């Protein structure tokens, strides 16, 4: 097979398409311009998540008041998927009732598991992270922030 034959060109095209699906514009945008990255002055809960396989780190800080996520921030280092997922998550859950956020965490992790019960479109921008499913070793990168938030919300006040 040479670089020019049609089969090879189709392969290139497919790879590019899959890479584009993994690294959707919105993901790269959050990676380059993270939202809510930083620390809170007086968080009511803080949790550190670690992905020992690749060394991704995400620390989530939240202020929960009256059953609502009043403020949220994250710190961390790692690959584009882990960090943009954290950024997109903080934007998605800011100001939302805790009960609703728990539901969103469940829906998001279900989407990443490939569950049929979830309509990815219902997740808005977060749907973009669904492309990561085609890269099984990277799924943990995408879910790290979400598991970390889940743990933070479970912490006793």
């Amino acid at each position, binding site marked *: 097979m040479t670089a020019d034959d049609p*089969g090879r060109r189709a392969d290139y095209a497919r790879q590019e398409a899959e890479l584009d699906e993994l690294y959707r*514009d919105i993901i790269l945008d959050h990676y380059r311009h993270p939202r809510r990255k930083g620390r809170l002055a007086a968080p009511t809960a803080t949790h550190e998540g670690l992905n020992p396989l*690749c060394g991704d780190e995400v620390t989530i800080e939240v202020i929960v008041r009256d059953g609502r996520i009043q403020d949220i921030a994250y710190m961390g280092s*790692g*690959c584009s998927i882990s960090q943009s997922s954290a950024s997109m998550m903080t934007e998605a859950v800011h100001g939302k009732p805790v009960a609703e956020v728990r539901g969103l965490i469940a829906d998001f992790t279900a989407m990443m598991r490939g569950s049929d019960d979830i309509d990815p479109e219902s997740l808005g921008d977060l749907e973009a992270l669904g492309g990561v499913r085609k890269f099984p070793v990277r799924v943990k990168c995408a879910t790290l922030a979400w598991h970390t938030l889940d743990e933070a919300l479970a912490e006793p006040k």
Partner: protein
Amino acid sequence: MLDVARIRKDFPILDRMVYGKPLVYLDNAATSQKPRQVIDALVRYYETYNANIHRAVHCLGEEATAAYEEARARVAAFINAPSPECIVFTRNTTEAINLVAYTWGRANVSEGDEILLTEMEHHSNLIPWQRLAQDKGATVRYIGLRDDQTLDLNGLENVFDARTKMMAMPHVSNSMGTINPVEKLAGEARRHGVMSLVDGAQAAPHMKVDVQAINCDFYAFSAHKMLGPTGVGVLYARRELLEEMEPFLGGGEMIRKVTFEGATWNDIPWKFEAGTPNIADVIAFGAAIDYLNEIGMDEVRAHEMEITEYALQQLGKLDDIILYGPRDSQQRGGVVSFNVADLHPHDIGTVLDRHGVAIRAGHHCTQPLMRRLGVSGTARASFYIYNTPQEVDVLVEAVKAARKFFRNDTA
């Protein structure tokens, strides 16, 4: 010069495509690919003389025992051990090091003693010693690094103190490729009455190793990184040490006489090989050693130096690239660790994978070293006998593609 084209024909896997591209396998420090000769040795054992060893009174058992012990003799000769009795088969390098930490370590390290390691230790040569130190109330100290990721041996004289019991070090760093002067270090340890263990996992596959010249007390390595099957590790130890050490695991094979009250131990090395060993894979490892011997380890080393120099040169031309490890190829094995601008190694790895290029991305089981370098990880290409300069070119093009891919979206 290696006849790489001929060598490649021996490795069936090198014909496969990955995402429609020819496989460019540059993850040899993790595990090497296997030649037909090794795969055939495995099949031959299972198809023609599969039997348990050392106990059978039948023909198959005798053949299997002979082949297993023959492999041990070849391993001994390969690293110039004085006798096959000094070679203990384990599951891997990690288990070999654990064997030493659990047996020699528990008998000889006590509260207030000290174990000396380096800052470039793989977790396998770190965790067993940390656990031993914790159990015994001993301390672990580390020899530091210079800026080029070679060991800082200034004042080596003074690193040993009266409580230092063991010095363990990698022969070649798995994440930086640094070749350490193990002869000098083991010699210095000996002068101070300190035991030495060399983690040879990244050296034995790639260069001539002579344990008597190094004059270390223990040397450990793995078959699967040197064309052999997974599941076989080697511990070389000086005979007197093996004689005096207690067994590691207890069970069949390692005993001489067993009563309801107790037992006495088998001779070395079998004292350390409890239960049915990994017969098939040890035998196939013998075939891997034959293969390497036929090429010649000096040739292997020369080929890797050449390809590593080429990779350093080509990757070094890219802007925004950070290369780790010593520049002098005399001082480094066939491992090239790098980072590109602010790209995360896993993002690089994923894009490279789609180009058919298999590299390792991450901390390489050397988390403390990564922290010391101030990075979360690196991308690592590692070479072996079947890699070509053309494959380095594919790597470089794929790295460029990764940079372009992420840069396009930075606006």
